[in-house]
């Protein structure tokens, strides 16, 4: 029996077919049909004419944008300081940041709920703020890790060269380190922004009664409207694709400008 390298790919190909391609096809089928199984674009037009879905989209985008911004503001300095410091135990410190991920997600949010109740008294008064705090808590490691990995691999001689050519610390950071760490920032953003739009469990657990995209989809399913729900999921998928395409083209550009800096 000839054993080619391609054979090793079979398990994943099967996985891909069963759990990625097949569900997607089902999603497309439901999104573009009505209750009688006929082809229709009604669900699509419904999405973009219904103020509720648009409102929910706006609200989800707002939560996701604020969460991402807060994550970035916290994560970048931490990643930068860690990556550039001369500490020997860097990996241990990074592990401390990642460690919360080893604990079950709902346990962590339950703990957070108690802490926030102690601080705020009544959680229900600040639903938006609490949602952002919960999401930040949940997604922060996903922002720190890619940025840290990018910065730690940067060639230190580049910043040295910048200094030799007369740049001060601030200039060297803004003109060299920051542009070169952009790929890490972008992958961090895409790992935080998109889940934050749909992770409604955090909102539920922290008593935010306003729907975001994830809860809207599940409410459609609870009302047996599989077609409308699938369309919302599909539109979300479209947004994700658009976002990925944009960040890819951004990547290419940084590669070019980064190269030019040499």
């Amino acid at each position: 029996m000839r054993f080619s390298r391609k054979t090793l790919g079979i398990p994943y190909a099967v996985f891909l077919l069963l759990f990625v391609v097949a569900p997607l096809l089902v999603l497309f089928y439901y999104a573009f049909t009505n209750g009688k199984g006929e082809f229709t674009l009604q669900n699509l037009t419904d999405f973009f004419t219904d103020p509720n879905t648009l409102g929910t989209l706006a609200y989800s985008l707002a939560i996701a944008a604020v969460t991402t911004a807060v994550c970035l503001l916290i994560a970048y300095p931490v990643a930068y300081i860690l990556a550039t410091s001369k500490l020997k135990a860097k990996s241990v410190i990074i592990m401390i940041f990642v460690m919360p991920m080893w604990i079950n997600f709902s346990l962590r949010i339950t703990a957070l709920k108690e802490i926030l109740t102690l601080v705020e008294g009544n959680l229900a008064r600040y639903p938006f703020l609490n949602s952002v705090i919960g999401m930040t808590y949940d997604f922060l490691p996903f922002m720190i890790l890619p940025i840290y990995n990018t910065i730690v691999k940067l060639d230190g001689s580049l910043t040295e060269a910048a200094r030799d050519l007369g740049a001060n610390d601030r200039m060297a950071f803004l003109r060299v380190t920051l542009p070169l760490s952009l790929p890490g920032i972008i992958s961090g953003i895409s790992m935080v922004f998109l889940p934050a739009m749909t992770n409604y469990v955090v909102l539920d657990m922290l008593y935010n009664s306003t729907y975001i995209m994830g809860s809207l989809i599940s409410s459609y399913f609870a009302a047996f409207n599989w077609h409308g729900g699938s369309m919302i999921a599909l539109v979300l998928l479209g947004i994700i694709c658009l976002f990925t395409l944009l960040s890819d083209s951004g990547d290419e550009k940084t590669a070019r400008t980064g190269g030019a800096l040499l």
Partner: protein
Amino acid sequence: MNMKRVFGIMLLAALLAGIAAPATVSAAKNEVVLRICNWEEYIDLGGWEDEEVIDLESGDIFGENSLVDDFAEWYEETYNIPVRVEYSTFGTNEDLYNMLTIGDVYDLVCPSEYMIMKLMSEDRVQPLSDSFFDENDENNYYIQGVSPYIRNIFETHDINGVTWDKVAAGYMWGVTGFVYNPEVVSEEDASTWKLMENPEYVRQITMKDNVRDSYFAAIGAMKSDLLVSEEFTGDENYAENLQNEMNDVTQETVDKAQDYLQRVKDNLYSFETDSGKADMITGKVVANYQWSGDAVYTMDQAEEDEYYLNFAIPQECTNIYFDGWIMLKSGIAEDARKQHAAEAFINFISRPDNVVRNMYYIGYTSTISGGDDGRVFEYLEWNYGAEDDEEETVEYPVSYFFSDDPEDENYVLTVPAEQLQRQLSAQYPSGEVIRRASIMVYFNEEQSEMINRMWIRVRCFNITSVPVWVWILITAVIAAGVICHFRRKAANDKLYS
């Protein structure tokens, strides 16, 4: 060997394994397979501590093993046919319906009354067989023991001319109301649906996160004045009128309910699916809209920490609900052996000692009163009856449930006075409460669509409520971003040219 052949062999192996596995199992024994789907945590799973034994005078009742296992053992002993129960659970009625739609097959399921009605109207329910109603068969515990009160409701409600009792056997029932902390909320405030809008308890009350319960509560609050007026309650057709008012789904009422719920949303702590009980016990909220069974559970749990909560049933009306066992046509598939096992399961869990085990374990109220077997009432006395040295006691009649005669004096409990606001009032509401109980009917597709849309509108962020300055700010930020981008691009182009 090429790729195709490797793949082919793997496929073949998988297929063979698939065919072989069930064949060997079912061929080995001539057993009946019964597929049951029930609510989560809705049956006694056994494993009680020794001190949990319920020592009634007629004998001890103790949950050693799961009732599901006990059934399999009992069935084989009684009918000499081996049975294997495949027991699974669902989270909400809607989940169950979706599971059935996807193609999951069950023989026996236990949804709530409105879902039973929906499934009945879709002709998916297998009627119970005639022998199930034979009161002379000693193993027919259900028909011997079902409460006259429940039996009457099941016999007087129908879908397309088929009364409920022909297809469904009641399992648990209850009413809705508020669990509240008596140190903060007065009994008077808690005894109305208007509690939701009471500004005194702003952000301290949780509601159920589902459209049917919220809609019912909203109607109860909106029509409060009408529902409590003497004119309305004194009418000879009170029960019928009440049911019509509470199931009003005209466009006008739905719109009003939407306005109402949108308004009270900001006065509530939150709409909760599961957290209400825990938040009530930990004191995060002072009142929680609850199904009576969960209310009993909440009060029991709080009591363990010496924290005492009360239960109040709104004066306007309350929603009486049922969960019942139905057999599905797709599962039974006219297999008489299977149907027999399914009906035997209903009978087995309706046997009074098993009823007591279930009630003790899950806190809900069984539809079984026991008939000639007094053990259910005995359990009530054991559980709630006043001790001899109790100072303040009251008489609490529950005859409407246990007897054909609502004045029957054999079914009067003597209980501590505080029980009028505690577990007993939730588990067995008084006859007075029962008078203002209304079921919530099954809405047709158009009506369901209407209230579902209403609910989504209540829950979604209203985009028109965004103030103008936010839009201006967002536009400014985007414009600034675009301008920066083009300026940098121009600068870069200059650099490379």
